[in-house]
């Protein structure tokens, strides 16, 4: 209030706030690396496992013309995003439970910025995970990726948006960290199955294939797979993800509580 230009000072302060918040958020994310461990270590292990399976069983899977590593890389990407998203309650529900979000809400910082900082730090982890899986797959296990940047980028961003929004639904609807962990654990397995970890949608019959194609994680896998290998994106999968993103986003913001 001492500034002669309150609006300018506010704008400057607003940036300063957010930079401080991101710094603190990053430090906390490194000290409490739930998201980083789940989002980076787990897909790295999966990649190694499928890499060795592919090494033992070279050649085509079915008539797809793809090796096992090729076929499973999109699934592993989706699982990395799920793992990061599923760990959102570990910080956000906890911070609500201990009264931290409420405490912040008494300051001029809008709590939504706290949420934004959390999502940005998770986005960075997701980016690292994607790079490790893509380059690890190609360099170490010789995956033959013909990534088309635009469709792949769109598919990846929509996958992240959709699956992060699902994580925020979990944050909004679970009253405590204990319940959140239990629900997150179950959800994790369902989503991993639907993303094709155990069996790819191309290998199963109807109606399971349709269910997988139109599930949140299955649609993500399909979009990534198509934009990686067939060159043209799968529009039904993109539209499916867009719809899920809207629904999850609505529920997450509608039922979000600061205390």
């Amino acid at each position, binding site marked *: *209030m*001492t*500034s002669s230009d*309150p609006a300018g*000072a*506010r704008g400057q*302060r607003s940036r*300063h*706030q957010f930079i*401080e*918040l991101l710094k*603190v958020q990053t*430090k*906390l994310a490194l*000290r*409490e690396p739930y998201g980083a461990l789940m989002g980076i270590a787990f897909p790295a292990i999966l990649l190694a496992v499928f890499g060795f399976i592919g090494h033992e069983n070279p050649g085509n899977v079915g008539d797809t013309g793809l090796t096992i590593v090729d076929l499973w890389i999109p699934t592993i990407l989706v699982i990395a995003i799920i793992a990061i998203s599923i760990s959102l309650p570990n*910080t956000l529900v*906890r*911070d609500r439970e*201990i*009264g*931290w979000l*409420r*405490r912040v*809400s*008494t*300051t*001029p*910082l809008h709590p939504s910025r706290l949420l934004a900082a959390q999502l940005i730090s998770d986005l960075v982890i997701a980016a690292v995970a994607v790079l490790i899986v893509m380059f690890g797959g190609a360099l170490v296990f010789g995956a033959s990726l013909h990534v088309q940047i635009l469709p792949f980028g769109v598919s990846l961003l929509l996958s992240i948006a959709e699956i992060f929004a699902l994580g925020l639904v979990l944050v909004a609807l679970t009253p405590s960290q204990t319940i959140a962990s239990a629900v997150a654990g179950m959800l994790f397995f369902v989503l991993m199955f639907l993303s094709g970890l155990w069996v790819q949608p191309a290998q199963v019959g109807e109606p399971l294939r349709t269910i997988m194609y139109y599930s949140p994680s299955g649609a993500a896998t399909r979009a990534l797979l198509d934009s990686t290998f067939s060159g043209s994106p799968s529009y039904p999968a993109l539209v499916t993800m867009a719809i899920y993103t809207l629904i999850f986003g609505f529920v997450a913001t509608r039922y979000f509580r600061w*205390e």
Partner: protein
Amino acid sequence: MDLHLLPALHPVTAEIALQSVHVVKPEPAVTVEHLVKRYGALAAVDDVSFSIREGEVFGIIGPNGAGKTTTVECISGLRVPDSGLVRVYGLSPQNDRDRIREFVGVQLQESTLPPRLKVGEAVRLFGSFYLDPLDPSELLETLGLDRLANSVFKSLSGGQRQRLSIALALVGNPRIAILDELTTGLDPEARRETWAFIARMRDRGVTVVLVTHFMDEAETLCDRLALINHGRVVALDTPEAIAAQAGGSKVRFIPSQPVDDETLCGIPGVNEIERKERYVTITGTGDLAGSLINALAAIGVRMSDVEARRGNLEDAFIKLTSQDRSSAQDRVRT
């Protein structure tokens, strides 16, 4: 017209406003009128009214569950009142919440930090939220937290957490600080230090709203008090006046020869008489010991082993809250 905010934001407008208003009555920092807040059928706050002057330390005391915290949460905008009016420098905590948050610092009763957040990081982070914050390292030093700047929150003791919580409430350089259960969990030395800190804040012109159930704290720090019980204001005055209101002076002595109750009751200020072995204990008001000595000397009775205690806030507190309880029970019975 909001005269307190104007000089800071629009000096010229403020000057004009001051010229046109001849008598500027000091506007209260906080006004609470007929505040009601219910949780379900229970009225946690039931028609509470008071106003807090700028620059004073205002205490809100009362037993557990009396509605103290709910009252201050309505002031800080954390809760929406069911009815009544709350104004902070003329602003509504609900509608002008963004503006109020700039100059109201809050310490919450049950709020902790992320376990691995460090003390220094937390204070700097909160400082960055405000336009004109205090210097974080100076504040840490004042509160004796400078050596703990690199400690994570979960490693702090109860007293250290409490001091950090105070630091977070004050780092924004607020004009009003709302402190809820300020010294709960502190050891006696830390309590004294915290009190001294609050006194320095008041000297700097900060208005302090202090929620407490420690009577010595209220007596030492507060300029005025609201005693709340069952969601209602039972007393609203200076600590001295409230202590006197309850009339809790006590004198205990051994008379040199037996004195009957009738004689004692005739002495001005005497309310109650208790006898235990040779001791007589009188409860009453005014200069009790003085009038007893004079009146008894006049009839040739000497007092020995005299012990006199002036009524304090604690006596008043117990008297006022228990009176209220019995009258509440009466209401229930009828």
